[in-house]
């Protein structure tokens, strides 16, 4: 197999990779604030809010991400909410990301030293300022490594969008494979592209976690 054919195929996969990365970005834009909201809900002193959040998180985690994708893409149009394939994938995966990451975000919030809240209150900050300007920024710093881990998992999960015909990396590889009949070569190439991004990213996340651990933040 000539090497330039491989390079050409790799080039053909790149727009798909770009779309996978865009999908990851959009799902994080949906998932991170929602995950933070869930985390706050899980800590709520109001019982109803707490139990409703627990139920939503458990249901979103208990249903396969692929089924969530189908609920949004094929199901929601039935109640007059029609999103295109890309947005459906971003919404479904974003909700799933939020459910899984909420536990990490919650423990991040718990890990902020209580003295910080007391200081904020002593300075007469309002509750909103106390949370958004004192607690949350420090919590986010603590949870960056685990959230990066989840982001890498969801970058890979964007491959599920194949099932609703989003032309992301795996879909492009599949289409290209059906044109050339080089199924193994091209699909394995796509798999290697996923690994080439995920593995260094997770090594980076690990080193970040270790560095944090040593400094003790």
């Amino acid at each position, binding site marked *: 197999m000539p090497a330039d054919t491989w390079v050409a195929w790799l080039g053909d996969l790149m727009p798909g990779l770009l779309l996978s990365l865009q999908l990851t970005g959009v799902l994080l834009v949906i998932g991170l604030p929602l995950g933070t909201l869930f985390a706050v809900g899980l800590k709520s002193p109001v019982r109803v809010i707490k139990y409703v959040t627990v139920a939503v998180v458990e249901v979103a985690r208990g249903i396969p991400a692929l089924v969530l994708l189908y609920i949004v893409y094929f199901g929601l149009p039935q109640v007059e909410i029609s999103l295109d394939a890309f947005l459906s994938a971003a919404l479904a995966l974003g909700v799933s990301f939020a459910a899984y990451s909420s536990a990490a975000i919650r423990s991040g919030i718990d890990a902020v030293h209580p003295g910080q809240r007391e200081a904020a209150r002593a300075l007469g900050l309002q509750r909103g300022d106390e949370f958004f300007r004192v607690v949350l920024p420090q919590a986010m710093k603590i949870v960056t490594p685990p959230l990066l881990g989840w982001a890498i998992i969801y970058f890979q999960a964007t491959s599920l969008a194949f099932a609703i015909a989003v032309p992301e990396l795996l879909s492009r590889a599949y289409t290209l494979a059906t044109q050339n009949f080089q199924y193994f070569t091209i699909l394995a190439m796509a798999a290697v592209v996923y690994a080439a991004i*995920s593995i260094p990213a997770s090594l980076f996340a690990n080193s970040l976690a270790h560095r944090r651990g040593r400094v003790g933040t």
Partner: protein
Amino acid sequence: MNLLTYLPSLASGIATTLALTALSFAVGAVIALPVAMARSSRFRGLRLLAGGYIELVRGIPPIAWLFVLFFGLNQFQIRLNSFTAAVIGLGIISAGYIAEIYRAGFNAVPPGQREAASALSLSSRTTFGTVVAPQALITVLPLAIAYFIGLLKDSAVASVIGVQDITTIAVSLSKRSLDSLTIFLAAGAVYLLISIPVAILGSWIGDRVAQKWGARHAR
């Protein structure tokens, strides 16, 4: 909108989903043994090899593994049916995760236990079989059960290569009706409903094992 309408039709996929999950888990649990042993080997080469395997399994999405096995192997005239491809693919993946679970289990056994066994001049086989493994099992079981439940949900990706599981049946039902929302919500409910008894059974087994082995090896 009545979720119950679709439960009987979806139920026919439950057996496939459970069989797929159980077989993949079994394949993974077996392959994981040499992987876990290599991962904590004295030889650097073996450690790197096992570490590389685990990273690869984590770095490539499950659906890509299934595609390579189901469509990719056709290039070499190897035709697997979709169920076999899914079992092999999910088995390869779970081996990586289960190997890490085994390792966590063995690391959780205090080194004093091994030292005591060697002071009593137990053979290495007896040490492993009657001292280390039972104590490791207490750590391994809850993690393995949590992984099994995760795998149950991950097995839904096998629908993409045509395995007749809960998700595939939901997709084909929804193509013949205008009630997609109910059908997919019902499918989601089925996954939730089968996870719950698995979790209960799992924690029951976990408790039994902890009672049986934990007391005798109390520290």
